[in-house]
């Protein structure tokens, strides 16, 4: 599909987990700014939960033992709730950078929607939408968060906020130029070993964008952005517009 197609039709496929990865990422971006879609996702998620609940199978007794054994040695992820006072200087500097980034971001869709979600979250959010929104908050407030920014040739700016501890990163851009009707922006993960893999699509309408990238950061050394034909590509077909290094 192209980014210009009616995205509302995708609600069913989305709650069934039937969207290809790149389209799912793109739809979630749309979702962040579409309250009606979020309400419909919540409704239809109840139906898929019923489908999920219609199956049962007995796990082996060993499975229980193995799981309880594993969790005894598995550290839990903690979301930051109460900000500690008196952060170290580096942390404070980073927070300033993040604050600046948020102010910048507040004017555009993704983050504006994100703030709306925060305010509205007790009402009509699904677990997944909420997970997206809180994932962004988690990364932006992670203690080990790093922010790397690059100015593109056209004057727009792209940033990657990464948390190795959370194994995730967020891509934030301002003033991306509008592409041709048959083009989208595509994000890429550059592996330490040199390979590139798709990390999601952004609408060719450009402007401001904020997006949590889904896959693990494990072997990632940089995030790149290119312009690609609608629907995205498996490998870049044009020169990168920018590449942001993710600190190890």
């Amino acid at each position: 599909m192209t980014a210009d197609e009616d995205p509302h039709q995708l609600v069913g496929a989305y709650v069934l987990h039937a969207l290809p990865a790149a389209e799912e990422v793109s739809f979630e971006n749309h979702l962040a700014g579409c309250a009606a879609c979020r309400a419909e996702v919540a409704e239809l998620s109840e139906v898929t939960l019923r489908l999920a609940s219609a199956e049962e199978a007995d796990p082996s007794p060993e499975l229980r033992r193995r799981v309880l054994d594993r969790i005894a040695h598995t550290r839990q992820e903690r979301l930051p709730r109460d900000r500690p006072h008196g952060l170290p200087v580096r942390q404070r500097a980073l927070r300033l950078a993040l604050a600046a980034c948020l102010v910048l971001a507040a004017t555009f869709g993704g983050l504006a929607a994100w703030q709306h979600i925060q305010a509205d979250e007790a009402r009509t959010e699904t677990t997944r939408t909420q997970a997206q929104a809180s994932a962004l908050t988690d990364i932006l407030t992670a203690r080990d968060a790093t922010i790397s920014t690059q100015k593109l040739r056209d004057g727009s700016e792209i940033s990657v906020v990464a948390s190795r501890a959370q194994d995730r990163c967020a891509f934030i851009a301002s003033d991306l130029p509008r592409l041709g009707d048959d083009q989208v922006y595509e994000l890429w993960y550059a592996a330490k070993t040199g390979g590139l893999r798709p990390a999601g699509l952004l609408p060719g309408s450009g402007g401001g964008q904020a997006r949590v990238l889904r896959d693990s950061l494990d072997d990632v050394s940089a995030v790149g952005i290119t312009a690609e034909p609608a629907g995205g590509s498996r490998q870049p077909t044009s020169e990168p517009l920018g590449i942001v290094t993710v600190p190890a």
Partner: protein
Amino acid sequence: MSKTGQDGHGSRRHSSAEAWLDARLKRAAEGDHDAFADVYDALARPVKGLICRVLRDEAQAEEVTQDVMVEIWRTADRYRPELGTARGWVLTLAHRRAVDRVRYVQASAARERHSALLAEDRPFDEVAETVERHEDHHRVRSCLAALERHQRVPLVLAYYQGMTYLEVAACLATPAGTVKSRMRSGLRLLRRCLEAR
């Protein structure tokens, strides 16, 4: 609309058992191993049932169930009771991981061959074969049966086989746009049926 969203996944029956489970998951998020064991005991059967249904492979289903359970422990802090039940949160994650696995493991050619068989309405027969331990299972089954075949099959192929809508479209030789809208309308009809009883 706004009402249904309020308690998200669990609005149909937020019984005291569900509320208890929600509270246990919250406790588990604070590092309580016993609370996590309760969550495991309450949800391991439906989690494995769902994963088994999607993967159709007992050994792999055990493995993925284990990964999902450990992931639930690790990320329990993300669970927000005000947005839905623990059951909904856990099963959504389990389905996601089952689908990830199926897409990762199975070569698409083999899957398309496989699903060509399934398109003969076998998916529904398999739903019919599952043991009805629960009144709810029966309801879901009869509501699925009440759908028109062209609406039921895309839902079953996507949800229970882990196919993308593009794969469903290829397998049914139906335009992708049609499949997308049938998925949506099929779910809406299913919802109406489930609510009507």
